[in-house]
């Protein structure tokens, strides 16, 4: 049985400890965190015992927050010819995890016809939003199930037609009384047909006739508004009817589904409940490294990442196909990746194994900023609420960070094995749709066309084209009274693109600026998307025969767009003008500044020494070809 929740979360706690933590959080009154932990408990242990605990604590939370849990209420009635009660707690727990407060009414055993035809029945008094009609073949078409071998072909055909007419009458009667959605289980075929292999040689055999009923049921359902087919036959086949069916429980408790598959029945119902309740995702945001391809593009390069038709890259191509299918239902795709823009774009556009490219994504956020912030921006850019986002990322820490910062986002629990990625996406109920409009099917193309018109075309022939397209203007000036606060702040807050991570207060900067051997610069950048403000600081220190770069940092917003090259080139040129022959700089590694590690060698510096503290790099100013790139309009004050 496939388990979509196989990843331990960074908290790494056992379910019993998690239960104790949840009760403690509820007692303390931290209800929102309790709710998150409760959803986490269910994800990690979706068993029947856990379901009871989750439901009881959820009801407690609902009471204590006076119903302000921001869940969508939904009422489901289940009319049935078999025992379904053990499934209900698991169904409610699944619904809770999708942000739905589900109330369930189960009709009496085998009274589905009376429930539907009687306008005063408990079904209509319950006033459901949706009704599941879960009737098995043995009740819906007993002659075909049990007595097929005794029936003449004509009689068998008539029996099949009678079954369809019955359903047609029930559907029409239901529609007269209620506007609720009606979800009808299709009929399953017998695992061992009466006549063995003879049965599959004709379309009028036992299985043939049952399938005919199912096709007719589909046709009839489509004639009514809000009546849908649930392919029960396919569900059972997916798990194997020999595993699915429990003869012992059927005989003792009229429960035909084996305990291990009750959860799968609940999840199948959720595939309808989620779109009917409106808790669907409108945008699927995906990571790149180890999600869309195997490996890390920034480290493994184009030749090293795994994506293609053969193992192991084939797993990622399956995921691409799943993403494309999701987008065909009108769901937008977006990228959110911590990478250098040009590295990631090159892989996305040029790697021959990729089946998805920039044009398939309505938004791209490829930078070093925090993912939750990027998700907020994606939601704004695409004009959707953050609760309409779904997030796919192989990294459990990123997933947990997003869950904590944006609990309304549907975070997919990606299994560890890439071979299971595609089905994790295909099995996520948030991407199910019950209708498809032409607009849905064309939505991605519409977004691509819109982006082109706005001049925000994201795929370029070369990164230089993209840099030119950006139309960057940079203003470089020595630190002044006006910029002092921001310069000091950047030294204190910038962690990722920061070569030496030296923190300075405003008085310290003022003191340095007063001395002739210290040179403090700031750079501000404007591009076609707007003014980014003051985004970089460089501090150079003249000492003896050389000029040393004491501090060099850049805000994550503008990394990878050659602004850093412009700033470094200025340091080199001004040092040369002052008569220095060498510009040196250190890289002092920290947990966070890996993005800056290769900055000096990428600009022609040579390694001079490495010790415990870090690496010292040096640039020969006479032979250096370091210049401000010509696609940046640089103004030096």
């Amino acid at each position: 049985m496939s388990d979509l929740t196989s990843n331990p979360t960074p908290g790494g706690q056992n379910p019993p400890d998690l239960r104790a933590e949840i009760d403690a959080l509820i007692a303390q009154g931290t209800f929102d965190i309790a709710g998150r932990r409760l959803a986490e408990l269910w994800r990690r242990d979706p068993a029947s015992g856990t379901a009871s605990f989750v439901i009881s604590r959820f009801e407690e939370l609902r009471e204590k927050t006076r119903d302000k849990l921001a869940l969508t209420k939904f009422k489901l009635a289940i009319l049935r010819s078999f025992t379904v009660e053990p499934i209900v707690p698991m169904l409610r727990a699944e619904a809770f995890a999708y942000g739905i407060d589900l109330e369930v009414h189960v009709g009496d055993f085998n009274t589905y016809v009376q429930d539907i035809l009687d306008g005063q029945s408990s079904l209509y008094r319950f006033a459901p939003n949706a009704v599941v009609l879960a009737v098995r073949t043995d009740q819906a078409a007993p002659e075909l199930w049990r007595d097929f071998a005794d029936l003449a072909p004509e009689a068998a055909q008539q029996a099949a037609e009678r079954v369809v007419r019955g359903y047609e009458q029930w559907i029409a009667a239901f529609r007269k009384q209620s506007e609720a959605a009606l979800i009808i289980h299709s009929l399953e075929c017998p695992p061992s047909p009466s006549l063995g292999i003879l049965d599959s040689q004709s379309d009028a055999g036992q299985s043939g006739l049952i399938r005919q009923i199912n096709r007719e049921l589909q046709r009839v359902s489509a004639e009514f508004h809000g009546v849908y087919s649930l392919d029960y036959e396919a569900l059972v086949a997916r798990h194997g009817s020999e595993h699915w069916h429990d003869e012992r429980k059927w005989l003792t408790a009229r429960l035909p589904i084996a305990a291990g598959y009750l959860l799968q029945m609940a999840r199948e119902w959720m595939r309808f409940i989620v779109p009917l309740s409106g808790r669907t995702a409108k945008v699927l945001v995906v990571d790149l490294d180890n999600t869309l391809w195997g490996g890390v593009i920034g480290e493994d390069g184009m030749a090293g990442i795994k994506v293609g038709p053969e193992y192991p890259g084939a797993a990622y191509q399956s995921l691409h196909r799943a993403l494309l299918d999701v987008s065909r239902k009108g769901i937008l795709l977006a990228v959110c990746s911590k990478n250098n823009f040009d590295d990631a774009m090159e892989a996305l556009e040029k790697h021959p194994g990729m089946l998805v490219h920039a044009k398939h994504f309505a938004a791209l956020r490829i930078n070093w900023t925090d993912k939750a912030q990027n998700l907020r921006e994606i939601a704004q850019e695409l004009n959707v609420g953050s609760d309409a986002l779904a997030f796919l990322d192989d990294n459990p820490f990123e997933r947990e960070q997003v869950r904590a910062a944006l609990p309304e986002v549907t975070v997919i629990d990606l299994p560890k094995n890439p071979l299971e990625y595609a089905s994790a996406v295909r099995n996520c109920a948030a991407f199910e749709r019950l209708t498809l409009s032409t607009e849905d099917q064309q939505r991605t193309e519409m977004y691509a066309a819109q982006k082109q018109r706005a001049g925000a075309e994201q795929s370029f022939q070369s990164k230089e084209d993209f840099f030119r397209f950006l139309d960057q203007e940079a203003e470089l000036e020595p630190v002044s009274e006006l910029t002092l606060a921001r310069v000091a702040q950047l030294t204190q807050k910038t962690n990722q693109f920061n070569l030496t991570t030296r923190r300075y207060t405003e008085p310290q900067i003022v003191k340095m600026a007063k001395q002739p051997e210290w040179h403090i610069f700031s750079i501000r950048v404007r591009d076609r998307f707007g003014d980014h403000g003051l985004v970089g600081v460089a501090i150079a220190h003249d000492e003896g025969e050389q000029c040393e770069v004491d501090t060099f940092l850049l805000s994550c917003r503008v990394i990878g767009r050659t602004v850093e090259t412009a700033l470094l080139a200025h340091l080199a040129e001004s040092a040369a003008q002052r008569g220095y022959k060498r510009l040196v700089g250190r890289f002092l590694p920290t947990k966070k500044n890996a993005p800056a590690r290769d900055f000096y060698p990428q600009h022609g510096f040579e390694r001079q020494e490495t010790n415990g503290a870090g690496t010292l790099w040096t640039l020969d100013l006479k032979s250096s070809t370091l210049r401000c790139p010509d696609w940046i309009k640089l103004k030096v004050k």
Partner: protein
Amino acid sequence: MTASTFEQVRNVASDIFGIPADKITAESSPETIDNWDSMQHLNLVLAIEEKFGVQLEPEDIEQMKNIGAVAALVEKLQSAAR
């Protein structure tokens, strides 16, 4: 019966019936627990099978007259499996 099997069975029953574990004894039965009806009996059976990885036959289910009997049944099935 060992304390640990009984305790585990008691915890399962606590989940199913929504009663604190310390209020459940070996004598707890459908007569003493309010909501232990036939549906809850089925839920208990399913939860026991899931928790202990055992298969309860129809005859076994009939023997589950109280929590003590359930725990004894579980022990019997577990030692038969070894």
